Every structure is written in C-alpha cells, then in structure tokens.
C-alpha cells in the first residue's frame, strides 16, 4: 500500500492529474445522480418521445443563453383553466361556460408556437368551443369556434385565416404592437396582460371541459429541447453513466483479455505463441469500425452487442505485441522460477505471477483507453448506429446532424453533448498522461 500512497502523493504534484481526477469525480457523481433523478425506465420512455412532450417548445435554446446574449427570450407559459375563474349559465340539456385565461407577457421575443389543449369528459355530445384573444391594448381577435373531441388540440399557430388576416404567423401577429403589424415592418412585441377567453357550450349535466393554453417559449431549461420537443437534459444526464459504463467495461474487457492472452503466449511459447502472433496479424487486417458498422447494419445496434464485439475484436489487438515485449523478460525472473519450483501450474503462474507484475505499468494505458471507447460509442451513434433505445450523447449529435442544427443556428444542440464528450475525454486523458509519467520509470526523469 505504501507504494500506492506514494504514487498518489506524486500524482498530486501534477495539476493536470488533479484536474483530471476532479473531472472524473464530477462525472461519476453526475453518473450516480442521473438514475436517481430520472429512473432508467422513465428515461427510456421519455426519450422515445411522443405526447409527453407536447407542452415543450420545439428547438428551444437553453435558458442560460439569454445571459450570454443579453436577450430576453420568452419561456414557456402553461395556463390551465383549472386555476382560472369561470362563469356558467345553464340551459335545458347543458350549460354555457365562459373562462378567461390571463397572463403577463414581458419577454422581448415572440413565442415560438401557440396551442390550446382541451379535455372534455362525460359529455353527451361534442362540446362547442369559441376562442377570443385580447391584447393589452384592447384589441380583440376571434380565433374561431369548433367542436372538440375528448382530447383535442387547437393549434392557433397553424390557423390559416388568422395568419392571412394578421399578415404574420399567429404567434407573432397576436403578440405584436398594432403599428408594427403592417406588412414590411419588423414586428415589435407588445408587453402586458393578454387574455384568452374561452366560450364553451357543453351538452349534458355532468359534462366538463378543461383547457391548457401553452405559449411556447424560445428558451427552455438548462439544456434546451430538440426537434421532437424532448428536453435534452434527459439524454445529456443519462449519457454520462452510459458513456462511463461503456468506456470502462470496454477498457477493462480489452485490457484484461489481451493481457491474459499475451501472458499465456509468452509462458507457453512454441506453437501457441506463434499462433497468437499470427492471429494478431490477422486481427490487424480486420478493420474494426467497418465491421462494427456491418454488424450494426445487419443485426442490431444494441450498445451491449457493440461492446461485446469491440472486446472480441480487440482480444488479439495490437496491444498484444506491446505486452509481449513487457512480459518476455519477466518470464526469466527468479521469482517465477521459485513459483515453478514449488509446483505452480502454467495457468497459476500466468494469473498470479506474470499479470500482476505488469499491471501497474498498464494502468496509465488503461486510463487513456477509456475515452477512446467513449468516443467510439459516440462515433457509432453519429453514424446512425447508436443504441435504439438508450439516450446517449452520440445520439443527440446524430439528431443534430440529421436536422442540420449548425445550419439552422441551433448551436447549443451540438455544443452541449460535444463539451460533455470533451470533458470526459480530457478528464481521463489528463489523468492517464500524468499517471504515465509517474508510473513509467523511463519517463520519470523527463
């Protein structure tokens, strides 16, 4: 243990090692926090997308981008009739309801979308709903009336007539100052208190109607949202444990199997060693990425299958030659001869005497190997061969690429996963490089 604590003490002298360790510790904490914050099943269900995200804006930037740019972009406001007062008037076979949803709009930018979600229950016939929009300056816009089904959506942003009348998209025109609504002028936001009045005719005594007005913002949360309205935070957070698990497992799997095979080859020698050497050469010919791509295309893109194939293909990887060179002198060491003298078998010597001897020297290599696999997983995902269900950083990048995020100016979509990938890579690489200088005796004096 003393040599270990000495190594740790020496590592502390390298600022890069300390920074790397800090980064890794942060990532590990976040990796533990992610499953607690969003349980596994929930994360998968959420990442599948769909109706759960209907009240989230499309392609909204993270909220903190406003601090950087100094803009005051709107956040999403959800106004429910459950919190609003309503007036009722009964008639034979039903009743008339008037609900007013008031909200303050103080942002400088226009909302990105405007939707009303309606739920009706225990209705004898489909209720009739009419919407009226009131601006702070007292203007009144009729948004039309229609029958609504049990769970309905009135998409005000898609209202054709209204957008023709306003000369702009409804979610811009309805929030613009009257003077700036002329064609050719840049619309300016009118701040103040807006009202959406809902007049409904309900059929049946027990019929109920609830509505949610969603004024979609242009910024959302700390990670923003993607083209399917999904909160990127889910994948950014869950990407951490997945990336760490993949990187660690792949690094452990490849290092240990390669080391074992190299040690066995060195110990037994003869035709076995020759066979291992030839297999290594064949393996060098086999291109890893195209084979992974082929397996992904022909069978499945499950991350665990990929992990298995990565480990399988690196069993006879290039590392063997390096380990062999390290292990060859050890074979002649007196302590191995002592082990043979007491009758230790070949397997025991390989496992208990040869491998432990080179392990410390291999730790730096092992640490620097982890980011390689983290990036490999991301590479596969960027190629469209990511795991079909798991939320990972690579899949965010892939989505961003297929949606031309950079071209459309959604920089956050690319930057957030890229920065996380880079931090992971840097954390392990900085630690690994410093460890290399501490553990590797030939480098210590340099």
């Amino acid at each position: 243990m003393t040599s270990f604590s000495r190594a740790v003490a020496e590592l502390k002298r390298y600022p890069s090692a300390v920074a790397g360790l800090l980064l890794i510790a942060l990532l590990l904490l976040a990796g533990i926090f992610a499953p607690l914050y969003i349980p596994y099943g929930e994360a998968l269900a959420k990442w599948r997308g769909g109706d759960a995200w209907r009240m989230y804006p499309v392609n909204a930037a993270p909220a903190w981008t406003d601090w950087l740019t100094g803009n005051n972009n709107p956040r999403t406001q959800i106004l429910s009739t459950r919190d609003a007062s309503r007036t009722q008037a009964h008639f034979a076979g039903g009743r008339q309801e008037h609900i007013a949803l008031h909200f303050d709009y103080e942002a400088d930018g226009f909302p990105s979308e405007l939707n009303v979600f309606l739920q009706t229950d225990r209705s004898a016939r489909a209720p009739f709903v009419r919407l009226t929009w009131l601006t702070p300056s007292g203007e009144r816009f009729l948004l039309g009336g229609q029958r609504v089904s049990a769970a309905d959506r009135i998409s005000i942003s898609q209202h054709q007539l209204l957008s023709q009348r306003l000369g702009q998209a409804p979610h811009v025109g309805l929030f613009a100052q009257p003077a700036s609504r002329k064609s050719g002028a840049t619309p300016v936001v009118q701040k103040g208190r807006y009202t959406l009045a809902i007049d409904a005719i309900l059929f049946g005594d027990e019929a109920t109607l609830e509505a949610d007005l969603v004024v979609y913002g242009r910024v959302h949360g700390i990670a923003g949202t993607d083209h399917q309205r999904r909160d990127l935070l889910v994948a950014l957070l869950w990407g951490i444990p997945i990336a760490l698990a993949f990187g660690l497992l792949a690094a452990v799997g490849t290092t240990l199997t390669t080391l074992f095979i190299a040690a066995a080859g060195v110990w037994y020698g003869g035709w076995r060693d020759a066979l291992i050497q030839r297999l290594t050469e064949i393996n060098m010919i086999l291109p890893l990425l195209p084979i992974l791509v082929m397996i992904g295309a022909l069978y499945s893109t499950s991350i665990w299958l990929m992990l298995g194939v990565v480990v399988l293909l690196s069993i006879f990887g290039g590392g063997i030659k390096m380990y062999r060179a390290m292990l060859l002198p050890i074979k002649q060491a007196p302590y191995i001869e002592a082990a043979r003298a007491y009758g230790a078998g070949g397997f025991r010597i390989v496992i208990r005497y040869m491998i432990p001897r080179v392990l410390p020297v291999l730790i730096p290599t092992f640490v620097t190997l982890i980011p390689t696999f983290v990036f490999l997983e991301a590479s596969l995902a960027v190629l469209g061969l990511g795991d079909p269900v798991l939320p990972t950083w690579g899949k965010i990048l892939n989505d961003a690429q297929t949606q031309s995020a950079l071209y459309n100016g959604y920089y956050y979509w690319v930057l957030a996963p890229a920065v996380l990938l880079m931090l992971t890579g840097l954390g392990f690489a900085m630690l690994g490089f410093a460890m290399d200088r501490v553990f590797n005796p030939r480098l210590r004096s340099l």
Partner: protein
Amino acid sequence: MKNTSRPISKATAIRQNLSRFIPFALLRLLGLFITVVIGVYLTILIANMGGKVDELRLLQIRTTVGEQVRADPAFFDMPVAERDDIIESRVTLEVKRRRLDQPFVARSIDYLLAAVRLDLGRSEEMHSDSGAREVSAIILERLPATLLLFGTANLAVFFSAVFFALRLSRRYGSWMDRAVIALAPTSAAPAWFFGIFLILVFAFLTPVLPAGGMVHVPPPEGRLAWGLSVAQHMVLPLAAMFFSSIFISIYSWRTFFLIHSSEDYVEMARAKGLPGRLIEKRYVLRPALSPIITSFALMLIGLWSGAIILEQVFNWPGLGSLIFRAIGHRDTPMIIGSVVIFAYLLAITVFLLDILYAILDPRVRIQGGRS
C-alpha cells in the same frame, strides 16, 4: 554493409542483398496474402451469420434470370405461366451451378475466392457517377478522394510532429515543451469531433470556408480553378485531422527522442564534441528510424478506420462516406466489398512497412532470407 575482412565490390553486395531481399519480400507477401484471405473469410462468416449473403445471391439470380427471359424475343409470345416455368427451371439450374443448394462451408470458399479476386459483385441500390453498378467500380471511383485527403493529412501530421519533436527535445522544459505536454490530452478526441467545432466556427459563425463536400457545385471550369476549389474544401478536414493528432504525436516523439538522446553512445558523441545536427542525424534519428516508420504505418492504419466518420461529417465523397451510404441503403454487397477493400489497403500498408523495414534494418533482411 561494410565487410572489412573480405572486401567485395559494390555490385556483388547489392546482388547479395537482393538475393536475400527478394525471397524475404515474397515470403512476406505470401504471409500477408494468407492473412488477408483469413481476414476476408472472417468477414464473410460475420456477414453470413444472418444468411444475408445467401438471400442476396438468390435474389440476384432470380432478377437476372427473370430479366434475361423477359428480354428474350423468343419468349415474347409465350403465356405468362409457361414463361414463369422457364424462369423457375433456369433459376434452379443457376442455383445448382453456383452450388447454393450445398452446405455453407463449401460455398463460403466460393465467396472467398470471388472476394479475393476483387470480384465484389453488383451493388443493390447504389451506382457510380458514371452509372456502373459494379461494387469494384464504385469503390475505385471513391478511392482517390480518400487517398488525397488522408494521405495529405498523414504526411503533414507525421513530418511536422517529428520535426517539432526534435526541436522540443533539444529545448526540453521550455514553455513550448510544457504547452505541448499540456495540450497532449486533447488528442483523446477523434478528428471528426474537432471537425464539428471547426465547421461551427469557420463555416457558420464566420463563413469563410465551405462546411463540406469536395468541390464547389457546379464544379469550376479549368484544372486550376478545380484544384483551388478542392484545396479550399480540404482545409477544414485537414485541420481537424491535424489538430486531433498533432499534439499527442509531438508529445510521444519528444519523449522518444529524449529517451534515445540519453543513450550512452549519444553521450559519447557529445563528449567527442560533434555538432548537434550531426548527433541528431546520425546518433538519434538513424537508430530510431524503425520505430518511427512503424508508428507511421500504425497511424496510417488507424486513420483508415477513422475515415468513415470524418468523411461523413465533412461530406467528403470518399470510401468512408460510401460505407455510410451503403449502411443507409442496407446494401450488403457494397458493405462487404468495402470491408474487403479496407482489408487490402491495410495489407498493402503492412507490406510496404515490411519492405521499408528490410531496407532500413539489415537484421530483418538476413532473418527473412533465412526463414
């Protein structure tokens, strides 16, 4: 090659060397060929586990036979049922001829022979720019683009890394040296990753360079204009590859040279008062040449497989993006064909490396000649 005890003419020495060298090269070539064959066979096994290749060939036979029969004027007046019978019997014949009714092991040898002969079959969905359906034609069309980009990048990285590393090893401990050490961990990220940032900054935030592709659309007239356009498109992918591997390369070469320049014979040369340049050339670089070449070849091999994703990010029309499109189309012959080509490229790299070794290191030659 000096022989003080028995002076011989230069011509004899060369002849002697050649007589050792040629068998060595041939043996090595044979060994590599066997390696490629086994590698390709493994690829075929992987691709066949789902029976994909067989399904594909059956389908191919059916379509070709069907086309042949339908296009033949002799069968034009025949009723459909009768024509279908003819197609069916011809398909059965063809299946027998290609031994598709036989067990897989026997047939896998056939696939292997075809793949090794680079008879890669026809693509299902894709075709080359000139319209050819042959997998080999499509691949050959894309190969120059890949070679241009990755050849340039590798050479640039390699030579600048060795050059800077030599300078740094002389000025070990300077701020430049420390900067390189500090920057080395950034190489944990692959080239495509840097590519994303470069595209963001130089193609979108300050649009000075094209974000992707190989030439402008439409391609400019004239050789010079075309070359300039290609050069302009190459800047960003080259920069991405350069940044992703330059610091780690300089770092490892610097360490390597430092270790080598602390050898006793270098100290001796220094004690003799030889000039620094001469020490570098004759005492540090010359013995280190074999490892330098090895790492050069290993870098080549590494970049071959890294090509897919970088080409995809930069929309570079090379082998990598070809594979990517092939995946999109689920075009199995195309995917397998590309893997075979990759295997050959790697084998050629390894072979050239061996030849270079033999030229540089006499020990390899002698050993090779004997075995």
